[in-house]
């Protein structure tokens, strides 16, 4: 776990792509500490105006890209799907607006020590952390196969860029608007077999992660699953985000999705006891 910072960030750019709003933030300290799989937590409401806050819980967002831009060493890009009051507020931010963020939070994807074949599976905006992960894996000479799933074309993240990053890309949409029609669960076995994967990385909904973890186990691969559980503080303080796990010692335990996760070993999560979201 890297040490997070809490800063007032500034929006450098906001761009609609398909169903998502891509925000680029200047958030000193967050990008510098980033590792793929970590996230940031945003406060909903104008910075400083504590009396004006009604959304007291934090909103978690995957850190998508970190790059130098406009004279800043490490701007942070996030992908927001406006689904509720918080994400709508975030999606409406404009260049120059300010937002309080904490990050990077959580434990990142663990990288293999050897140059083993890997499969990266992302669903909707949750594919966001996979592109930076793919880069790190390529640096370690791990072959990367990408699986991108989404409800439809508009929710498919960076499919074009994906083809540059990965050796092979499989696209699945629920409505069949691009790629195969169906769910990630329908194709994952075949992809793992073809890639001969040693490690599978996945980010998305609980049922998808469960399916991926199960498939990985069947193929004798490690899985690293990045969970999205409803968070309150997102910083490990409130114990509101329990995930049932099995410890190294085989004993059933409870991990915090935000602080012990969001990335957990797929074979350690007690999926059946986890309430899906």
């Amino acid at each position, binding site marked *: 776990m890297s040490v997070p910072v809490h800063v007032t960030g500034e929006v450098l750019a906001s761009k609609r792509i398909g169903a998502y709003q891509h925000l680029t933030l200047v958030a000193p300290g967050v990008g510098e500490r980033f590792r793929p799989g970590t996230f940031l937590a945003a406060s909903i409401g104008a910075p400083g105006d*504590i009396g004006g806050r009604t959304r007291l819980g934090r909103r978690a967002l995957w850190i998508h890209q970190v790059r130098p831009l406009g004279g800043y060493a490490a701007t942070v890009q996030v992908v927001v799907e406006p689904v509720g009051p918080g994400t709508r507020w975030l999606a409406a931010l404009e260049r120059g607006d300010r937002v309080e963020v904490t990050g990077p939070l959580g434990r990142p994807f663990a990288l293999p020590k050897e140059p083993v074949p890997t499969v990266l599976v992302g669903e909707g905006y949750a594919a966001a952390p996979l592109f930076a992960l793919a880069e790190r894996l390529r640096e370690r000479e791990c072959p990367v196969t990408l699986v991108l799933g989404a409800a439809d074309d508009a929710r498919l993240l960076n499919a074009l860029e994906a083809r540059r990053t990965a050796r092979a890309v499989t696209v699945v949409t629920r409505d069949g608007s691009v790629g195969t029609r169906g769910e990630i669960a329908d194709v994952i076995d075949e992809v793992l077999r073809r890639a001969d994967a040693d490690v599978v990385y996945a980010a998305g909904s609980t049922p998808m992660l469960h399916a991926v973890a199960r498939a990985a186990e069947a193929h004798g691969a490690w899985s690293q699953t990045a969970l999205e559980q409803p968070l309150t*503080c997102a910083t490990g*303080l409130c*114990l509101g985000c329990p995930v049932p796990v099995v410890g190294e010692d085989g004993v059933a335990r409870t991990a915090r999705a935000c*602080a012990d996760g969001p990335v957990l070993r797929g074979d350690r999560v007690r999926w059946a006891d986890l309430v899906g979201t």
Partner: protein
Amino acid sequence: MTELAGLRLASPVVVAAGCGGTGRELAAYGALAELGAFTTRSITLEPRSGGPLPRFVETPAGFVHATGLPNPGIDGFLATELPWLLQQRTRVVVSVAARSLGDLVELARRLGSAPGVSAVELNLAPPEGDDLLVSREPFQVGAAVAAVHRELPRGVPVLAKLRPDVLRVVEAARSAVEAGAEAVVVGQSLPAAMPDGRDAGLSGPAVGPLALRCLTEVVAALQVPVVACGGVATAEDVRVRLAAGAAAVQVGSALLHDPTTAARLVAALASHEGERR
């Protein structure tokens, strides 16, 4: 320097029970040693894994929460969490909750022999977790305080944490003081319900004006040092409570919204002190 029940505190700003995680998470946002004290989440005799999801509901009035007081139990706490906290050179106030007076005595006994504990805070009114002892009447507060007080060495004061129930708080405080409590904490989550009907606590802005009323009444009626708790988020909130006669204040759920709150308030008060000198 703030003086509380014979303890010298570095600041009047104290972290409230259950809102600072194990301490490690909070330490990322400011040195714990600069706080007045760190209060642990309530520790019970046996470990507790906590209740089902959802554990939190966000409302403009504050968080409605039903965590079920998850904690590693007194043995786990003494073995893993306390030593780390003591290394931080912060004052550690251990909050305890119990299913019976007997359990409370046992907890006090173990804490009494653990070096480094600055004070013991009694959680006498957990708003949820119906298996736990709730002091409904003032005399029950006294009984609990007396039982714990006997087991603790001199120099480890007992803080009785009281529900901000205006009709009973003065009597409850009196009863606590007569039984040996060196200070009282006025303010606690309010007994509330989740939208699905489960018992829960309500913490945050809602508690502020209610606990302030109780603070005023206790200060007017008794000589005991009072720690004000509930709804503290800004330096102004702290000042209002100190002006009303509180010896120190606790910061609770504001930390879940902004993990730097306690550090920020410590700094704001220190600079204010500086100005006045």
